[in-house]
Protein backbone atom coordinates (compact mmCIF):
# COMPACT_ATOMS: atom_id res chain seq x y z
CA UNK A 1 0.00 0.00 0.00
CA UNK A 2 2.48 2.50 -1.22
CA UNK A 3 -0.03 4.98 -2.31
CA UNK A 4 -2.84 5.47 0.03
CA UNK A 5 -4.83 8.26 1.43
CA UNK A 6 -6.35 6.60 4.42
CA UNK A 7 -4.96 8.00 7.55
CA UNK A 8 -4.80 11.36 5.89
CA UNK A 9 -7.83 12.92 7.42
CA UNK A 10 -8.79 16.36 6.40
CA UNK A 11 -10.03 18.45 9.22
CA UNK A 12 -10.80 21.57 7.25
CA UNK A 13 -12.27 22.15 3.85
CA UNK A 14 -9.31 24.31 3.11
CA UNK A 15 -7.11 21.29 3.56
CA UNK A 16 -9.36 19.18 1.42
CA UNK A 17 -9.39 21.82 -1.27
CA UNK A 18 -5.68 22.09 -1.62
CA UNK A 19 -4.48 21.77 -5.12
CA UNK A 20 -3.02 18.33 -4.36
CA UNK A 21 -4.82 17.01 -1.32
CA UNK A 22 -2.94 13.75 -1.00
CA UNK A 23 0.50 13.85 0.56
CA UNK A 24 2.02 11.45 -1.91
CA UNK A 25 0.82 13.60 -4.77
CA UNK A 26 2.31 16.67 -3.17
CA UNK A 27 5.60 14.94 -2.67
CA UNK A 28 5.53 13.65 -6.19
CA UNK A 29 4.85 17.06 -7.67
CA UNK A 30 7.48 18.69 -5.52
CA UNK A 31 10.00 16.08 -6.55
CA UNK A 32 9.06 16.45 -10.20
CA UNK A 33 9.46 20.21 -10.06
CA UNK A 34 12.76 19.94 -8.27
CA UNK A 35 13.89 17.46 -10.85
CA UNK A 36 12.75 19.61 -13.74
CA UNK A 37 14.20 22.86 -12.46
CA UNK A 38 17.39 21.69 -10.82
CA UNK A 39 18.44 18.25 -11.93
CA UNK A 40 17.51 18.31 -15.60
CA UNK A 41 19.48 21.46 -16.46
CA UNK A 42 22.51 19.70 -15.03
CA UNK A 43 22.25 16.45 -16.89
CA UNK A 44 20.42 16.86 -20.18
CA UNK A 45 22.26 17.32 -23.43
CA UNK A 46 21.76 20.14 -25.85
CA UNK A 47 19.91 17.83 -28.15
CA UNK A 48 17.54 16.81 -25.38
CA UNK A 49 16.81 20.41 -24.57
CA UNK A 50 16.39 21.75 -28.01
CA UNK A 51 14.79 18.90 -29.83
CA UNK A 52 12.86 17.13 -27.13
CA UNK A 53 12.21 19.12 -24.00
CA UNK A 54 11.51 22.53 -25.45
CA UNK A 55 8.99 21.32 -28.03
CA UNK A 56 7.51 19.00 -25.45
CA UNK A 57 7.00 21.81 -22.97
CA UNK A 58 5.56 24.17 -25.52
CA UNK A 59 3.21 21.57 -26.90
CA UNK A 60 2.15 20.67 -23.37
CA UNK A 61 1.23 24.27 -22.84
CA UNK A 62 -0.73 24.35 -26.06
CA UNK A 63 -2.42 21.07 -25.23
CA UNK A 64 -3.30 22.48 -21.84
CA UNK A 65 -5.05 25.35 -23.56
CA UNK A 66 -6.85 23.07 -25.96
CA UNK A 67 -7.86 20.82 -23.12
CA UNK A 68 -9.62 23.70 -21.41
CA UNK A 69 -11.73 24.23 -24.45
CA UNK A 70 -12.21 20.68 -25.63
CA UNK A 71 -11.77 18.67 -22.49
CA UNK A 72 -13.38 20.92 -19.95
CA UNK A 73 -15.88 22.89 -21.95
CA UNK A 74 -16.63 20.22 -24.54
CA UNK A 75 -16.27 22.51 -27.54
CA UNK A 76 -14.25 20.48 -29.99
CA UNK A 77 -11.98 22.84 -31.81
CA UNK A 78 -9.73 22.35 -34.77
CA UNK A 79 -8.69 25.96 -34.81
CA UNK A 80 -5.90 25.63 -32.30
CA UNK A 81 -3.24 25.92 -34.95
CA UNK A 82 -4.75 29.24 -35.93
CA UNK A 83 -4.74 30.43 -32.33
CA UNK A 84 -1.10 29.49 -32.09
CA UNK A 85 -0.37 31.36 -35.28
CA UNK A 86 -2.19 34.46 -34.10
CA UNK A 87 -0.25 34.28 -30.84
CA UNK A 88 3.04 33.94 -32.67
CA UNK A 89 2.45 36.64 -35.26
CA UNK A 90 0.85 38.90 -32.67
CA UNK A 91 3.83 38.62 -30.39
CA UNK A 92 6.15 39.05 -33.37
CA UNK A 93 4.55 42.29 -34.40
CA UNK A 94 4.64 43.77 -30.96
CA UNK A 95 8.17 42.53 -30.40
CA UNK A 96 9.61 43.95 -33.60
CA UNK A 97 7.51 47.05 -34.03
CA UNK A 98 7.68 48.47 -30.53
CA UNK A 99 11.24 49.41 -29.70
CA UNK A 100 12.64 47.66 -26.67
CA UNK A 101 9.56 45.61 -26.11
CA UNK A 102 10.54 43.04 -23.50
CA UNK A 103 10.00 39.42 -24.36
CA UNK A 104 7.55 38.34 -21.69
CA UNK A 105 5.02 41.11 -22.28
CA UNK A 106 5.30 40.45 -25.99
CA UNK A 107 4.43 36.82 -25.45
CA UNK A 108 1.49 37.75 -23.27
CA UNK A 109 0.24 40.31 -25.74
CA UNK A 110 0.50 37.62 -28.37
CA UNK A 111 -1.73 35.53 -26.15
CA UNK A 112 -4.18 38.39 -25.92
CA UNK A 113 -4.33 38.71 -29.69
CA UNK A 114 -5.15 35.02 -29.83
CA UNK A 115 -7.83 35.60 -27.21
CA UNK A 116 -9.58 38.14 -29.38
CA UNK A 117 -9.31 35.91 -32.41
CA UNK A 118 -10.49 32.92 -30.39
CA UNK A 119 -13.52 34.69 -29.04
CA UNK A 120 -14.54 35.81 -32.50
CA UNK A 121 -14.27 32.35 -33.92
CA UNK A 122 -15.89 30.97 -30.79
CA UNK A 123 -19.10 32.83 -31.46
CA UNK A 124 -20.56 30.12 -33.70
CA UNK A 125 -20.28 27.71 -30.76
CA UNK A 126 -23.34 29.39 -29.34
CA UNK A 127 -25.33 27.67 -31.99
CA UNK A 128 -23.25 24.99 -33.58
CA UNK A 129 -22.22 21.96 -31.58
CA UNK A 130 -20.12 18.85 -31.52
CA UNK A 131 -18.47 17.62 -34.67
CA UNK A 132 -20.21 20.29 -36.68
CA UNK A 133 -18.45 22.86 -34.56
CA UNK A 134 -15.19 20.98 -34.84
CA UNK A 135 -15.27 21.12 -38.61
CA UNK A 136 -16.54 24.66 -38.60
CA UNK A 137 -13.58 25.81 -36.51
CA UNK A 138 -11.39 24.75 -39.38
CA UNK A 139 -12.61 27.98 -40.91
CA UNK A 140 -10.45 29.79 -38.35
CA UNK A 141 -7.53 27.60 -39.28
CA UNK A 142 -7.69 28.12 -43.00
CA UNK A 143 -8.52 31.75 -42.59
CA UNK A 144 -5.45 32.37 -40.50
CA UNK A 145 -3.28 30.43 -42.94
CA UNK A 146 -4.53 32.68 -45.65
CA UNK A 147 -4.37 35.86 -43.61
CA UNK A 148 -0.72 35.51 -42.69
CA UNK A 149 0.24 34.62 -46.20
CA UNK A 150 -1.70 37.38 -47.83
CA UNK A 151 -1.73 40.39 -45.53
CA UNK A 152 1.79 41.64 -45.72
CA UNK A 153 1.60 43.89 -42.71
CA UNK A 154 1.51 40.91 -40.38
CA UNK A 155 4.80 39.63 -41.68
CA UNK A 156 6.43 43.03 -41.72
CA UNK A 157 6.48 42.99 -45.53
CA UNK A 158 8.90 40.09 -45.73
CA UNK A 159 8.76 39.07 -49.39
CA UNK A 160 8.21 35.40 -48.70
CA UNK A 161 5.99 35.92 -45.68
CA UNK A 162 8.22 34.17 -43.26
CA UNK A 163 9.47 35.98 -40.21
CA UNK A 164 12.13 35.54 -37.61
CA UNK A 165 13.08 37.01 -34.28
CA UNK A 166 16.28 37.41 -32.38
CA UNK A 167 17.73 39.14 -29.37
CA UNK A 168 15.34 37.72 -26.84
CA UNK A 169 15.93 38.61 -23.22
CA UNK A 170 14.11 38.10 -19.98
CA UNK A 171 15.03 40.50 -17.19
CA UNK A 172 18.29 41.18 -18.84
CA UNK A 173 19.22 37.55 -19.30
CA UNK A 174 19.60 36.54 -22.92
CA UNK A 175 17.47 33.59 -24.01
CA UNK A 176 19.74 31.86 -26.43
CA UNK A 177 21.27 28.87 -24.76
CA UNK A 178 19.27 25.64 -24.75
CA UNK A 179 19.07 25.67 -20.97
CA UNK A 180 17.73 29.18 -20.79
CA UNK A 181 15.11 28.34 -23.39
CA UNK A 182 14.16 25.28 -21.49
CA UNK A 183 13.85 27.14 -18.22
CA UNK A 184 11.81 29.89 -19.81
CA UNK A 185 9.34 27.42 -21.28
CA UNK A 186 9.23 25.39 -18.12
CA UNK A 187 8.53 28.40 -15.94
CA UNK A 188 5.76 29.63 -18.18
CA UNK A 189 4.29 26.17 -18.32
CA UNK A 190 4.37 25.71 -14.56
CA UNK A 191 2.78 29.07 -13.88
CA UNK A 192 0.10 28.64 -16.51
CA UNK A 193 -0.45 25.07 -15.45
CA UNK A 194 -1.09 26.08 -11.86
CA UNK A 195 -3.39 28.89 -12.86
CA UNK A 196 -5.29 26.60 -15.17
CA UNK A 197 -5.56 23.96 -12.49
CA UNK A 198 -6.97 26.51 -10.11
CA UNK A 199 -9.39 27.70 -12.68
CA UNK A 200 -10.76 24.32 -13.56
CA UNK A 201 -11.35 23.41 -9.96
CA UNK A 202 -13.26 26.54 -9.12
CA UNK A 203 -16.59 27.90 -10.20
CA UNK A 204 -15.43 28.73 -13.70
CA UNK A 205 -14.23 25.21 -14.33
CA UNK A 206 -17.45 23.77 -13.01
CA UNK A 207 -19.41 25.97 -15.36
CA UNK A 208 -17.39 24.74 -18.29
CA UNK A 209 -17.81 21.13 -17.34
CA UNK A 210 -21.52 21.61 -16.76
CA UNK A 211 -21.89 23.05 -20.24
CA UNK A 212 -19.90 20.16 -21.60
CA UNK A 213 -21.88 17.46 -19.89
CA UNK A 214 -25.42 18.72 -20.24
CA UNK A 215 -26.02 22.21 -21.43
CA UNK A 216 -29.77 22.34 -20.89
CA UNK A 217 -29.42 21.36 -17.25
CA UNK A 218 -26.61 23.84 -16.87
CA UNK A 219 -28.83 26.61 -18.13
CA UNK A 220 -31.55 25.57 -15.72
CA UNK A 221 -29.28 26.02 -12.74
CA UNK A 222 -28.36 29.45 -13.94
CA UNK A 223 -25.23 29.00 -15.99
CA UNK A 224 -25.16 31.19 -19.05
CA UNK A 225 -23.99 29.06 -21.95
CA UNK A 226 -22.73 32.04 -23.87
CA UNK A 227 -20.58 33.32 -21.06
CA UNK A 228 -19.21 29.90 -20.22
CA UNK A 229 -18.36 29.02 -23.80
CA UNK A 230 -16.80 32.31 -24.65
CA UNK A 231 -14.68 32.39 -21.52
CA UNK A 232 -13.50 28.92 -22.36
CA UNK A 233 -12.58 30.09 -25.83
CA UNK A 234 -10.86 33.12 -24.38
CA UNK A 235 -8.83 31.33 -21.74
CA UNK A 236 -7.99 28.49 -24.05
CA UNK A 237 -6.90 30.63 -26.93
CA UNK A 238 -4.85 32.80 -24.62
CA UNK A 239 -2.84 29.83 -23.44
CA UNK A 240 -2.62 28.38 -26.92
CA UNK A 241 -1.57 31.78 -28.22
CA UNK A 242 1.25 32.05 -25.73
CA UNK A 243 2.30 28.56 -26.67
CA UNK A 244 2.24 29.57 -30.30
CA UNK A 245 4.42 32.56 -29.59
CA UNK A 246 6.87 30.34 -27.74
CA UNK A 247 6.85 27.85 -30.60
CA UNK A 248 7.79 30.57 -33.03
CA UNK A 249 10.15 32.54 -30.84
CA UNK A 250 11.87 29.87 -28.84
CA UNK A 251 11.64 26.65 -30.76
CA UNK A 252 11.69 27.60 -34.42
CA UNK A 253 13.19 31.07 -34.29
CA UNK A 254 11.94 31.69 -37.80
CA UNK A 255 8.67 30.48 -39.15
CA UNK A 256 6.13 30.63 -41.89
CA UNK A 257 2.38 30.11 -41.60
CA UNK A 258 2.82 26.45 -42.42
CA UNK A 259 4.41 26.00 -39.00
CA UNK A 260 0.91 26.40 -37.62
CA UNK A 261 -0.91 24.46 -40.24
CA UNK A 262 -4.01 22.40 -39.90
CA UNK A 263 -1.82 19.42 -39.03
CA UNK A 264 -0.83 21.24 -35.88
CA UNK A 265 -4.49 21.71 -35.01
CA UNK A 266 -5.18 18.07 -35.44
CA UNK A 267 -2.14 17.07 -33.46
CA UNK A 268 -3.21 19.23 -30.57
CA UNK A 269 -6.64 17.69 -30.59
CA UNK A 270 -5.08 14.24 -30.61
CA UNK A 271 -2.88 15.17 -27.70
CA UNK A 272 -5.78 16.05 -25.50
CA UNK A 273 -7.82 13.04 -26.49
CA UNK A 274 -5.06 10.52 -26.04
CA UNK A 275 -3.84 12.29 -22.93
CA UNK A 276 -7.25 12.53 -21.37
CA UNK A 277 -10.03 14.99 -21.94
CA UNK A 278 -10.63 17.16 -18.95
CA UNK A 279 -7.34 16.51 -17.23
CA UNK A 280 -4.46 18.91 -16.82
CA UNK A 281 -2.09 16.04 -16.32
CA UNK A 282 -3.46 14.46 -19.46
CA UNK A 283 -2.24 17.37 -21.52
CA UNK A 284 1.31 16.57 -20.55
CA UNK A 285 0.91 12.90 -21.24
CA UNK A 286 -0.70 13.62 -24.56
CA UNK A 287 2.02 16.02 -25.60
CA UNK A 288 4.64 13.50 -24.64
CA UNK A 289 2.89 10.79 -26.60
CA UNK A 290 2.43 12.77 -29.78
CA UNK A 291 5.65 14.79 -29.69
CA UNK A 292 8.16 12.41 -28.21
CA UNK A 293 6.96 8.96 -29.14
CA UNK A 294 7.50 9.24 -32.89
CA UNK A 295 10.98 10.62 -32.35
CA UNK A 296 11.69 7.88 -29.88
CA UNK A 297 10.44 5.24 -32.27
CA UNK A 298 12.44 6.73 -35.07
CA UNK A 299 15.64 6.43 -33.08
CA UNK A 300 14.89 3.24 -31.28
CA UNK A 301 13.66 1.12 -34.16
CA UNK A 302 16.94 0.89 -36.06
CA UNK A 303 18.70 -0.01 -32.84
CA UNK A 304 16.15 -2.64 -32.02
CA UNK A 305 16.24 -4.12 -35.50
CA UNK A 306 19.99 -3.92 -35.39
CA UNK A 307 19.97 -6.37 -32.50
CA UNK A 308 18.22 -8.82 -34.73
CA UNK A 309 20.64 -8.10 -37.49
CA UNK A 310 18.00 -6.51 -39.70
CA UNK A 311 18.96 -3.42 -41.58
CA UNK A 312 16.20 -1.17 -42.65
CA UNK A 313 16.06 1.90 -44.84
CA UNK A 314 15.13 5.35 -43.63
CA UNK A 315 11.85 5.10 -45.47
CA UNK A 316 11.22 1.70 -43.99
CA UNK A 317 11.78 3.08 -40.53
CA UNK A 318 9.44 5.96 -41.15
CA UNK A 319 6.75 3.63 -42.38
CA UNK A 320 7.24 1.29 -39.47
CA UNK A 321 7.16 4.27 -37.18
CA UNK A 322 3.79 5.32 -38.58
CA UNK A 323 2.40 1.85 -38.19
CA UNK A 324 3.63 1.36 -34.66
CA UNK A 325 2.48 4.80 -33.67
CA UNK A 326 -0.99 4.12 -35.06
CA UNK A 327 -1.14 0.74 -33.41
CA UNK A 328 -0.07 2.21 -30.08
CA UNK A 329 -2.80 4.82 -30.24
CA UNK A 330 -5.38 2.14 -30.75
CA UNK A 331 -3.88 -0.08 -28.11
CA UNK A 332 -3.86 2.61 -25.45
CA UNK A 333 -7.43 3.51 -26.26
CA UNK A 334 -8.51 -0.04 -25.88
CA UNK A 335 -6.77 -0.33 -22.55
CA UNK A 336 -8.22 2.97 -21.41
CA UNK A 337 -10.63 4.89 -23.62
CA UNK A 338 -10.44 7.92 -21.41
CA UNK A 339 -6.82 8.53 -22.10
CA UNK A 340 -3.46 8.21 -20.50
CA UNK A 341 -4.36 10.37 -17.52
CA UNK A 342 -7.13 7.96 -16.63
CA UNK A 343 -4.74 5.07 -17.02
CA UNK A 344 -2.44 6.85 -14.63
CA UNK A 345 -5.14 7.34 -12.04
CA UNK A 346 -6.34 3.77 -12.37
CA UNK A 347 -2.76 2.78 -11.80
CA UNK A 348 -2.69 4.87 -8.68
CA UNK A 349 -5.90 3.30 -7.53
CA UNK A 350 -4.39 -0.10 -7.97
CA UNK A 351 -1.39 1.00 -5.97
CA UNK A 352 -3.74 2.12 -3.26
CA UNK A 353 -5.12 -1.38 -3.01
CA UNK A 354 -1.84 -3.09 -3.50
CA UNK A 355 -1.00 -5.83 -2.65
CA UNK A 356 -4.64 -6.83 -2.60
CA UNK A 357 -6.29 -7.18 -5.98
CA UNK A 358 -9.42 -5.25 -5.02
Amino acid at each position, binding site marked *: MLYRENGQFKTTYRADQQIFPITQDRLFIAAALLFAFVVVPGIASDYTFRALLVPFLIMSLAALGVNILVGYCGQISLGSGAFMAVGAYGAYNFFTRIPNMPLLPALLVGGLCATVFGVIFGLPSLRVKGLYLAVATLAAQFFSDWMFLRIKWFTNYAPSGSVSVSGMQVLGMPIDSPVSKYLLCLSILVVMGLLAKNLVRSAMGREWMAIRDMDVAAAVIGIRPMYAKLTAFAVSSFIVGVAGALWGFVYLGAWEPAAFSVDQSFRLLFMVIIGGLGSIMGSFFGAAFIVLLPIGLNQFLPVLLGWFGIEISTAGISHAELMIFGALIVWFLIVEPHGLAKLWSTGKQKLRLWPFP*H
Partner: protein
Amino acid sequence: MDPKNIVLNVNGIEVIYNHVILVLKGVSLQVPEGGIVAILGGNGAGKTTTLRAVSNLLKGERGEVTKGSIELRGERIENLSPSDLVQRGVVQVMEGRHCFAHLTIEENLLTGAYTRKNKAEVAANLEKVYAYFPRLKTRRASQAAYTSGGEQQMCAIGRALMASPSIVLLDEPSMGLAPQIVEEVFGIVKDLNTKERVTFLLAEQNTNMALQYSDYGYIMESGRVVMDGPASELATNEDVKEFYLGVGGGERKSFRDVKSYKRRKRWLA
Protein backbone atom coordinates in the same frame (compact mmCIF):
# COMPACT_ATOMS: atom_id res chain seq x y z
CA MET B 1 -35.96 -25.67 -7.29
CA ASP B 2 -35.74 -28.59 -9.53
CA PRO B 3 -32.26 -28.49 -11.09
CA LYS B 4 -33.48 -30.02 -14.33
CA ASN B 5 -35.54 -27.16 -15.57
CA ILE B 6 -33.15 -24.41 -14.56
CA VAL B 7 -32.65 -22.28 -17.69
CA LEU B 8 -30.38 -19.72 -16.25
CA ASN B 9 -27.82 -20.53 -13.66
CA VAL B 10 -25.63 -17.79 -12.28
CA ASN B 11 -22.93 -19.24 -10.17
CA GLY B 12 -20.87 -17.14 -7.78
CA ILE B 13 -20.01 -14.36 -10.17
CA GLU B 14 -17.76 -11.47 -9.36
CA VAL B 15 -17.88 -8.32 -11.45
CA ILE B 16 -15.27 -5.61 -11.61
CA TYR B 17 -15.71 -2.28 -13.31
CA ASN B 18 -12.73 -0.42 -14.75
CA HIS B 19 -10.36 -3.09 -13.50
CA VAL B 20 -10.62 -1.81 -9.95
CA ILE B 21 -14.17 -1.40 -8.71
CA LEU B 22 -15.42 -4.68 -7.35
CA VAL B 23 -19.19 -4.62 -7.48
CA LEU B 24 -20.58 -8.13 -7.38
CA LYS B 25 -19.01 -10.33 -4.76
CA GLY B 26 -20.14 -13.78 -5.56
CA VAL B 27 -23.73 -13.69 -6.72
CA SER B 28 -25.57 -16.91 -7.44
CA LEU B 29 -29.07 -17.28 -8.65
CA GLN B 30 -31.19 -19.70 -10.63
CA VAL B 31 -34.08 -19.07 -12.91
CA PRO B 32 -36.38 -21.99 -13.69
CA GLU B 33 -37.97 -22.54 -17.04
CA GLY B 34 -41.19 -20.62 -17.25
CA GLY B 35 -40.64 -18.86 -13.95
CA ILE B 36 -40.74 -15.26 -12.92
CA VAL B 37 -37.83 -14.42 -10.68
CA ALA B 38 -37.38 -11.06 -9.04
CA ILE B 39 -34.18 -9.42 -7.83
CA LEU B 40 -34.85 -6.88 -5.16
CA GLY B 41 -32.55 -4.54 -3.33
CA GLY B 42 -31.72 -0.96 -2.67
CA ASN B 43 -29.96 1.51 -4.90
CA GLY B 44 -26.52 0.32 -5.77
CA ALA B 45 -27.09 -3.22 -4.61
CA GLY B 46 -25.93 -4.55 -7.94
CA LYS B 47 -29.14 -5.61 -9.62
CA THR B 48 -28.42 -3.91 -12.88
CA THR B 49 -24.90 -5.23 -12.85
CA THR B 50 -26.19 -8.76 -12.41
CA LEU B 51 -28.53 -8.43 -15.36
CA ARG B 52 -25.79 -6.90 -17.49
CA ALA B 53 -23.54 -9.79 -16.61
CA VAL B 54 -26.16 -12.24 -17.79
CA SER B 55 -26.85 -10.45 -21.05
CA ASN B 56 -23.16 -9.75 -21.63
CA LEU B 57 -23.61 -6.03 -21.85
CA LEU B 58 -20.92 -5.38 -19.29
CA LYS B 59 -18.19 -4.83 -21.78
CA GLY B 60 -19.55 -1.54 -23.00
CA GLU B 61 -19.46 -0.32 -19.41
CA ARG B 62 -15.91 -1.52 -19.02
CA GLY B 63 -16.93 -4.18 -16.60
CA GLU B 64 -16.02 -7.83 -16.64
CA VAL B 65 -16.96 -11.03 -14.93
CA THR B 66 -13.85 -12.20 -13.17
CA LYS B 67 -15.09 -15.23 -11.29
CA GLY B 68 -17.91 -17.68 -11.41
CA SER B 69 -19.96 -18.88 -14.32
CA ILE B 70 -23.20 -18.19 -16.08
CA GLU B 71 -25.02 -21.00 -17.80
CA LEU B 72 -27.97 -20.86 -20.11
CA ARG B 73 -29.61 -24.25 -20.45
CA GLY B 74 -26.35 -25.82 -19.44
CA GLU B 75 -24.26 -23.84 -21.90
CA ARG B 76 -21.63 -21.40 -20.66
CA ILE B 77 -22.47 -18.02 -22.10
CA GLU B 78 -19.81 -15.68 -20.78
CA ASN B 79 -18.11 -15.52 -24.12
CA LEU B 80 -21.13 -15.13 -26.31
CA SER B 81 -21.95 -11.77 -27.76
CA PRO B 82 -25.18 -10.05 -26.74
CA SER B 83 -26.59 -10.71 -30.17
CA ASP B 84 -25.85 -14.43 -29.86
CA LEU B 85 -27.85 -14.35 -26.68
CA VAL B 86 -30.75 -12.69 -28.40
CA GLN B 87 -30.57 -15.42 -31.00
CA ARG B 88 -30.93 -17.85 -28.12
CA GLY B 89 -33.97 -15.95 -26.93
CA VAL B 90 -32.50 -13.87 -24.12
CA VAL B 91 -33.42 -10.20 -24.34
CA GLN B 92 -32.76 -7.45 -21.88
CA VAL B 93 -34.78 -4.32 -21.28
CA MET B 94 -32.17 -1.89 -20.17
CA GLU B 95 -32.45 0.43 -17.25
CA GLY B 96 -32.93 4.00 -18.31
CA ARG B 97 -34.86 3.13 -21.49
CA HIS B 98 -32.18 3.56 -24.12
CA CYS B 99 -34.56 4.12 -26.97
CA PHE B 100 -32.99 4.97 -30.31
CA ALA B 101 -33.41 8.69 -30.14
CA HIS B 102 -33.55 9.48 -33.84
CA LEU B 103 -35.77 6.59 -34.82
CA THR B 104 -39.52 6.87 -34.56
CA ILE B 105 -41.39 4.74 -32.07
CA GLU B 106 -42.42 2.36 -34.81
CA GLU B 107 -38.91 2.11 -36.17
CA ASN B 108 -37.69 1.43 -32.67
CA LEU B 109 -40.12 -1.43 -32.38
CA LEU B 110 -39.27 -2.81 -35.79
CA THR B 111 -35.59 -2.68 -34.99
CA GLY B 112 -36.42 -4.79 -31.98
CA ALA B 113 -37.46 -7.49 -34.40
CA TYR B 114 -34.07 -7.46 -36.08
CA THR B 115 -33.47 -11.12 -35.34
CA ARG B 116 -36.87 -12.21 -36.56
CA LYS B 117 -36.92 -12.83 -40.26
CA ASN B 118 -40.50 -13.92 -40.56
CA LYS B 119 -42.47 -10.93 -41.80
CA ALA B 120 -45.83 -12.18 -40.62
CA GLU B 121 -44.50 -12.85 -37.17
CA VAL B 122 -43.04 -9.34 -36.97
CA ALA B 123 -46.30 -7.81 -38.05
CA ALA B 124 -48.18 -9.86 -35.50
CA ASN B 125 -45.74 -8.88 -32.77
CA LEU B 126 -46.12 -5.25 -33.68
CA GLU B 127 -49.86 -5.52 -33.39
CA LYS B 128 -49.50 -7.25 -30.08
CA VAL B 129 -47.26 -4.50 -28.71
CA TYR B 130 -49.62 -1.83 -29.92
CA ALA B 131 -52.43 -3.68 -28.28
CA TYR B 132 -50.51 -3.81 -25.01
CA PHE B 133 -49.55 -0.15 -25.21
CA PRO B 134 -52.15 1.81 -27.17
CA ARG B 135 -50.29 4.99 -26.28
CA LEU B 136 -47.42 3.84 -28.46
CA LYS B 137 -49.72 3.49 -31.40
CA THR B 138 -50.81 7.10 -31.20
CA ARG B 139 -47.20 8.25 -30.95
CA ARG B 140 -45.84 5.77 -33.48
CA ALA B 141 -44.55 8.37 -35.93
CA SER B 142 -42.82 10.52 -33.38
CA GLN B 143 -39.07 10.34 -32.82
CA ALA B 144 -38.39 8.51 -29.63
CA ALA B 145 -36.39 11.33 -28.13
CA TYR B 146 -39.43 13.54 -28.23
CA THR B 147 -41.75 11.28 -26.36
CA SER B 148 -42.39 11.42 -22.65
CA GLY B 149 -40.45 9.38 -20.16
CA GLY B 150 -43.22 6.86 -19.71
CA GLU B 151 -43.75 6.49 -23.43
CA GLN B 152 -40.08 5.73 -23.83
CA GLN B 153 -40.28 3.11 -21.13
CA MET B 154 -43.17 1.46 -22.95
CA CYS B 155 -41.21 1.64 -26.14
CA ALA B 156 -38.25 -0.08 -24.54
CA ILE B 157 -40.39 -2.88 -23.19
CA GLY B 158 -42.28 -3.23 -26.43
CA ARG B 159 -39.05 -3.31 -28.37
CA ALA B 160 -37.81 -6.25 -26.36
CA LEU B 161 -41.04 -8.14 -26.88
CA MET B 162 -40.67 -7.72 -30.64
CA ALA B 163 -37.86 -10.25 -30.60
CA SER B 164 -40.24 -13.02 -29.46
CA PRO B 165 -37.92 -13.81 -26.58
CA SER B 166 -38.03 -16.86 -24.40
CA ILE B 167 -36.22 -15.21 -21.50
CA VAL B 168 -36.64 -11.55 -20.72
CA LEU B 169 -34.40 -9.64 -18.37
CA LEU B 170 -36.38 -6.67 -17.16
CA ASP B 171 -34.52 -3.88 -15.43
CA GLU B 172 -36.95 -1.73 -13.50
CA PRO B 173 -39.82 -2.02 -15.93
CA SER B 174 -42.18 0.03 -13.78
CA MET B 175 -39.96 3.04 -13.53
CA GLY B 176 -41.69 6.21 -14.60
CA LEU B 177 -44.92 4.52 -15.55
CA ALA B 178 -48.32 5.61 -14.40
CA PRO B 179 -49.95 3.24 -11.90
CA GLN B 180 -52.35 1.58 -14.24
CA ILE B 181 -49.67 1.07 -16.81
CA VAL B 182 -47.52 -0.54 -14.13
CA GLU B 183 -50.31 -2.95 -13.52
CA GLU B 184 -50.62 -3.55 -17.18
CA VAL B 185 -46.93 -4.22 -17.54
CA PHE B 186 -47.05 -6.81 -14.85
CA GLY B 187 -50.19 -8.12 -16.40
CA ILE B 188 -48.32 -8.52 -19.65
CA VAL B 189 -45.53 -10.30 -17.85
CA LYS B 190 -47.97 -12.73 -16.32
CA ASP B 191 -49.76 -13.09 -19.58
CA LEU B 192 -46.66 -13.94 -21.59
CA ASN B 193 -45.49 -16.16 -18.83
CA THR B 194 -48.58 -18.27 -18.71
CA LYS B 195 -49.55 -18.20 -22.37
CA GLU B 196 -46.17 -18.32 -24.08
CA ARG B 197 -44.08 -19.78 -21.30
CA VAL B 198 -41.70 -16.83 -21.38
CA THR B 199 -39.30 -16.79 -18.48
CA PHE B 200 -38.67 -13.52 -16.68
CA LEU B 201 -35.84 -12.27 -14.53
CA LEU B 202 -36.68 -8.85 -13.26
CA ALA B 203 -34.93 -6.29 -11.17
CA GLU B 204 -37.51 -4.15 -9.52
CA GLN B 205 -37.89 -1.50 -6.90
CA ASN B 206 -41.61 -1.78 -6.77
CA THR B 207 -41.31 -4.67 -4.36
CA ASN B 208 -44.98 -4.91 -3.79
CA MET B 209 -45.81 -5.59 -7.40
CA ALA B 210 -42.74 -7.66 -7.98
CA LEU B 211 -43.47 -10.07 -5.18
CA GLN B 212 -47.08 -10.20 -6.13
CA TYR B 213 -46.34 -11.39 -9.64
CA SER B 214 -43.16 -13.40 -9.26
CA ASP B 215 -42.57 -16.94 -8.09
CA TYR B 216 -39.25 -16.52 -6.46
CA GLY B 217 -37.20 -13.59 -5.17
CA TYR B 218 -33.62 -12.72 -4.38
CA ILE B 219 -32.74 -9.80 -2.20
CA MET B 220 -29.40 -8.16 -2.88
CA GLU B 221 -27.34 -5.88 -0.77
CA SER B 222 -23.90 -4.46 -1.60
CA GLY B 223 -23.20 -6.94 -4.32
CA ARG B 224 -24.31 -10.04 -2.48
CA VAL B 225 -27.51 -12.02 -2.29
CA VAL B 226 -28.61 -11.72 1.29
CA MET B 227 -31.89 -13.50 1.24
CA ASP B 228 -33.88 -15.56 -1.16
CA GLY B 229 -37.01 -17.59 -1.16
CA PRO B 230 -40.37 -18.07 -2.79
CA ALA B 231 -42.10 -14.78 -3.34
CA SER B 232 -44.93 -15.57 -1.02
CA GLU B 233 -42.52 -16.29 1.81
CA LEU B 234 -40.57 -13.13 1.24
CA ALA B 235 -43.75 -11.12 1.20
CA THR B 236 -44.52 -12.24 4.69
CA ASN B 237 -41.04 -11.81 6.08
CA GLU B 238 -41.10 -9.07 8.69
CA ASP B 239 -37.95 -7.31 7.54
CA VAL B 240 -39.03 -7.35 3.96
CA LYS B 241 -42.39 -6.04 4.96
CA GLU B 242 -40.96 -3.18 6.88
CA PHE B 243 -38.19 -2.11 4.56
CA TYR B 244 -39.34 -3.09 1.13
CA LEU B 245 -43.07 -2.99 1.37
CA GLY B 246 -43.39 -0.17 3.84
CA VAL B 247 -45.96 -2.04 5.87
CA GLY B 248 -43.91 -2.95 8.91
CA GLY B 249 -46.08 -3.72 11.85
CA GLY B 250 -49.17 -4.41 9.81
CA GLU B 251 -50.47 -1.07 8.55
CA ARG B 252 -48.96 0.84 5.68
CA LYS B 253 -47.22 3.88 7.11
CA SER B 254 -47.92 7.26 5.68
CA PHE B 255 -44.97 8.76 3.87
CA ARG B 256 -45.61 11.92 5.79
CA ASP B 257 -45.15 10.24 9.09
CA VAL B 258 -41.90 8.57 8.35
CA LYS B 259 -39.78 9.57 11.25
CA SER B 260 -36.54 11.19 10.50
CA TYR B 261 -34.60 9.14 12.93
CA LYS B 262 -35.38 6.04 11.03
CA ARG B 263 -32.25 4.42 9.69
CA ARG B 264 -31.94 2.00 6.88
CA LYS B 265 -31.98 -1.64 7.37
CA ARG B 266 -28.73 -3.25 6.48
CA TRP B 267 -28.41 -6.96 6.60
CA LEU B 268 -24.72 -6.81 6.31
CA ALA B 269 -23.82 -3.70 8.15
